[in-house]
């Protein structure tokens, strides 16, 4: 823990709950159970690729209307990414290519990773796949998938009449 976290005067107000270590632990536990119970549809991230190969980090947010998915894909070309949306899942496929010009050079640091990846994210709700759109900027992929009218309609309020 950093010292400044212990100093009340400079302690940052937790910007949002998601930053709190407890929530992050809870989230990790949740995703562990999710990985298990969603069956083998969603390849756990740790198994999604070979050792040391590139696998993108993904954030998924759900709102009433849609799903927003963000993935960090630094160094991947737009044309090398393939996004497939089915009714209740989205697949991101692509390849981070190692620059060929690097071959045969002397390396001092090699921390970046390369390779092809394929990640399937089950959404668990019916989506309107036709209206999905994606953009790619500065190495970050952004996908928005609206929920289907049916899915949105779930939970319609039933008026109660006084008798």
């Amino acid at each position: 823990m950093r010292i400044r976290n212990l100093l009340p005067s400079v302690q940052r107000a937790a910007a949002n709950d998601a930053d709190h270590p407890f929530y992050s632990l809870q989230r990790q536990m949740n995703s562990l159970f999710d990985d298990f119970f969603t069956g083998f549809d969603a390849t756990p991230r740790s198994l999604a690729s070979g050792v040391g190969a590139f696998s993108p980090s993904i954030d998924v947010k759900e709102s009433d209307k849609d799903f927003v998915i963000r993935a960090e894909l630094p160094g991947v070309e737009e044309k090398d990414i393939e996004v497939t949306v089915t009714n209740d899942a989205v697949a991101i496929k692509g390849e981070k290519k190692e620059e060929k010009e690097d071959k045969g050079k002397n390396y001092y640091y090699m921390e970046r990773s390369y390779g092809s990846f394929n990640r399937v994210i089950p959404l668990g709700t019916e989506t309107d796949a036709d209206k999905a759109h994606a953009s790619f900027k500065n190495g970050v992929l952004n996908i928005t998938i609206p929920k289907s009218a049916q899915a949105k309609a779930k939970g319609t309020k039933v008026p109660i009449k006084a008798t």
Partner: protein
Amino acid sequence: MMEKEMQKTENVSATERIRNVKTFVPRVDIYEDKDSLFLVADMPGVDEKTVDIELEKNVLTIAGRVENGRIKDGTLMYSEYEIGDYERVFTLSDEIDRDKIVATVKNGVLRLELPKAEKVKPKKIAIKAA
């Protein structure tokens, strides 16, 4: 174990900053050929406007800011990465020709070319037949 490896490394030595965000150490590749040294850093989310390269004496600092990284509305279902700035410091030797450093950013990858100074380039010595 591996999952941990894939995640961003938080920069714990970062000094107190004005912006209320975390700082990460970008992953880099450094390699050389006979003319130059190359530094390639993965910094997803930065562009040429938000990346900052500073060379003070022989200390090279690369830094990047990520704006609007968070998805604003909705509940988080999966979260595999955190949003934050990038910063990493390198020490250069005198063998770099500082005036000719070239930097480019593309698809969230920063690429620096650090040309070697003339005096340290390998030279072939012609042998004269005596």
